[in-house]
């Protein structure tokens, strides 16, 4: 192996009584894509903050190209050649692509922007990523998330980074955008940039990365060549236990049809979708982001108004109704967007769990606080939510625990038909396994689940039936046995 581009040795960091990192080591070669893997809370974020200069480490040494590296702050780290791409896009949406790329590093004389040099530098950075065709003067906010990410990477490139850290770069990307990002990563590697790639998606890491380091409970528990590591071995390192079966196989019997959508349309994103779900069935919906899967769930649930077609719940024609009516009929919806639509972050756990049925905890519009708290506590216990109590605000919980609260709402209501939109997005492997098991148990107890997911192994592992959506149309619905991962993909992109 060539001498290391970046070497971390014995890095420790504690916050108060919590030891976040314990003697962590990491070594990245030049032009290497290195996967940093670990469950939520394993210490990845802390390590990234130390690398990017946001926090100093308590002890240990860092070297960049053989010279001591101890950044005084994020700006210092960037100037020394360590740049970071955050999970959430950080662009000024009203500024142009060019202005965003040059932000903080403008070409200027005495404060006057040199337009020609600016354009040349911005264009150069985009060219290096294979996106030279981007219109430089359009507002950044007009681009898709994937494109905005490219703009951010271009911005990072201006500082000529030697190490580029990418934190969950694909968490909000579609499959095809993810492929394009891999192309960008390949180009960066070819230019000699080392990349630290942090992701929950192990399959992705195995495809893009050369080597890996696994963190667990603040310690390095494994490192090596990616080509020698199996998926199960990585999961076992992360969770500390062998994951014999991530997906529950609970036998269940399918009953009568409980939910039926007939020629349901909500133009332009949902065109005449017809689908029926049976009691005890887990029905998956695959497709690219924007294919209309979320729109289907929202229209069924009454969050978006259908332009045509109808919905029947438990055999009764239900018309185009409101979420309130749907909850009343026993239909529950879990939003893909936990923070913006799913939960009330600055409200207590108990209100988040019981919001759909507050009337049930008292009479004449009054709420008996004790009964409400007891109902919420039952679910935080059963789902093993890590919290100080049901009065704690949901925003203070980790992603996996927040998702459990969002689930608890459906369980407490209780919903008999569950519309789940990306229920495992952005949560760690351990929490995922628990959510899979929960979905399996719910179906076994006679509930019906419609599961939208962009993660194909999840659909193939959980569902009885899988439908594929493409450009607003439901193009195929078949039993799981008749699908494979590649067939699902082909069907989703329309290459049949």
């Amino acid at each position, binding site marked *: 192996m060539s001498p290391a581009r970046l070497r971390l040795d014995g890095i420790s960091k504690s916050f108060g009584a919590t030891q976040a990192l314990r003697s962590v080591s990491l070594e990245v070669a030049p032009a290497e894509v290195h996967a940093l893997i670990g469950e939520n809370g394993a210490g990845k974020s802390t390590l990234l903050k130390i690398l990017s200069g946001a926090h100093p480490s308590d002890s240990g040494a860092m070297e960049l190209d053989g010279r001591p590296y101890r950044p005084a702050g994020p700006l210092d780290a960037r100037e020394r050649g360590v740049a970071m791409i955050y999970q959430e896009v950080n662009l000024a949406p009203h500024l142009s692509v060019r202005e965003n790329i040059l932000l903080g590093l403008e070409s200027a004389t005495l404060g006057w922007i040199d337009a020609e040099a600016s354009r040349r530098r911005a264009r150069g950075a985009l060219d290096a990523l294979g996106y030279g065709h981007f219109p430089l003067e359009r507002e950044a906010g007009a681009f898709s998330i994937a494109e905005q990410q490219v703009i951010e990477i271009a911005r990072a490139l201006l500082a000529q980074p030697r190490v580029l850290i990418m934190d969950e770069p694909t968490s909000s990307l579609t499959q095809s955008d993810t492929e394009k990002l891999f192309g960008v990563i390949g180009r960066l590697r070819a230019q000699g940039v080392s990349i630290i790639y942090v992701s929950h998606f192990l399959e992705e890491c195995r495809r893009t990365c050369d080597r890996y380091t696994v963190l667990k409970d603040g310690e390095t528990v494994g490192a090596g060549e990616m080509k020698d590591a199996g998926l199960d071995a990585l999961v076992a390192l992360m969770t500390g236990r062998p994951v014999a079966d991530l997906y529950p196989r609970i036998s269940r019997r399918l009953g009568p049809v409980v939910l039926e959508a007939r020629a349901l349309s909500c133009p332009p994103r949902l065109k005449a979708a017809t689908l029926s779900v049976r009691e005890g069935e887990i029905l998956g919906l695959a497709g690219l982001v924007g294919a209309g899967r979320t729109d289907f769930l929202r229209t069924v649930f009454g969050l978006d108004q259908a332009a045509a077609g109808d919905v029947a719940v438990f055999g009764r024609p239900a018309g185009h109704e409101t979420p309130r009516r749907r909850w009343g009929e026993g239909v529950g919806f879990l939003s893909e967007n936990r923070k913006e639509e799913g939960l009330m*972050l600055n*409200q207590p756990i108990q*209100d988040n769990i019981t919001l759909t049925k507050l009337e049930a905890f008292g009479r004449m519009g009054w709420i008996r606080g004790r009964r409400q708290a007891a109902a919420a506590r039952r679910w935080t216990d059963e789902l093993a939510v890590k919290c100080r109590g049901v009065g704690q605000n949901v925003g203070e919980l980790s992603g996996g625990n927040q998702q459990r609260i969002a689930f608890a709402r459906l369980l407490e209501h209780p919903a008999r038909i569950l519309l789940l939109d990306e229920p495992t997005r952005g949560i760690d492997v351990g929490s995922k396994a628990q959510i899979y098991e929960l979905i399996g148990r719910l179906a076994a107890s006679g509930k019906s689940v419609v599961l939208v997911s962009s993660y194909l192994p999840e659909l193939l592992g959980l569902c009885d039936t899988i439908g594929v959506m493409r450009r607003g149309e439901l193009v195929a619905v078949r039993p799981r046995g008749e699908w494979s991962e590649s067939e699902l993909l082909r069907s989703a992109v329309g290459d049949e």
Partner: protein
Amino acid sequence: MIPALRRILGKAGPFIGLVLVIGLFAIPEETRVHFLSYHNFKIILTQTVIVSIGALGMTLIIVSGAIDLSVGSTVALTGVIAALLIVRGWGPAATTLAAIGVGALIGLLNGSAVAGLRMPSFIITLGMLGIGRGTAKWLADNQTVSYESSPINRWMTTANPSGAALPAGVWVAVALAVATSLLLRKTVFGRHVFALGSNEAAARLCGVPTVRLKIVVFALAGCFFGLSGVFQLSRLRLGDPTVAVGLELDIIAAVIIGGASLNGGAGTVLGSIIGALIMSVLRNGSQQMGWPNYFQEIIIGLVIIVAVFLDRFRRGGRA
């Protein structure tokens, strides 16, 4: 150390502020005797009635994630209408109910426009600020509306020689504060208001009737503002269409000092009332110290900023 400090601030922050402010004015010997007298507290409480009843309505609105800038105009308009009704021989009860009704109507218009047109409440109520004030001047024919006498005039008087009794306005404010606090904390309606303010999309997803709820919140708050108008009339003893300019800012300040968040989803009735009291005590104390008016204004401005800063500190950096 810091978490403990945060907990204390969270539990009793505004209250500590009130004690500090009272303590501040109790230090100089020449004013202490009068400042700490029962009669002076009676004056302070009475002077707080209008702002605190308004703050009850504003707490509902701010917790729901909205704002109302038209309160001052509503108070002037309802005061003018009440005065006109008294001139026409209406009794105090009917006049008060009519004023509350007018307040509710303005709130209904505000709420319907906010919910129905999906416009920011800031814009809608900024418009209503002008409309209400203009209507008040129009109805009053651009002058004050005076009347012979009315029992309403006695509701805010502190010149009660027998001493002990507090004026009716104070008791009304206390009763309404208790009722509003229960409404916000113990009822489905109240929890829905918090849900709406915290995350409107999540509230809608959970079946909260968000459109109707917004309208009801503004209409109910309008009732409070109408009642504030009656007490404003009681204090002035005439209907003045130019009164209470900027009152909404005092009321918003009280609610914010009391720990509410302008982002919605946070706020308490007790906090808002204490916020209103803090400002009254500052005004009253400054007068007794003989500080000029501009000095009071500067101090109150600083208090708002410090209060919100401390509140942010206790929430751990997230305002």
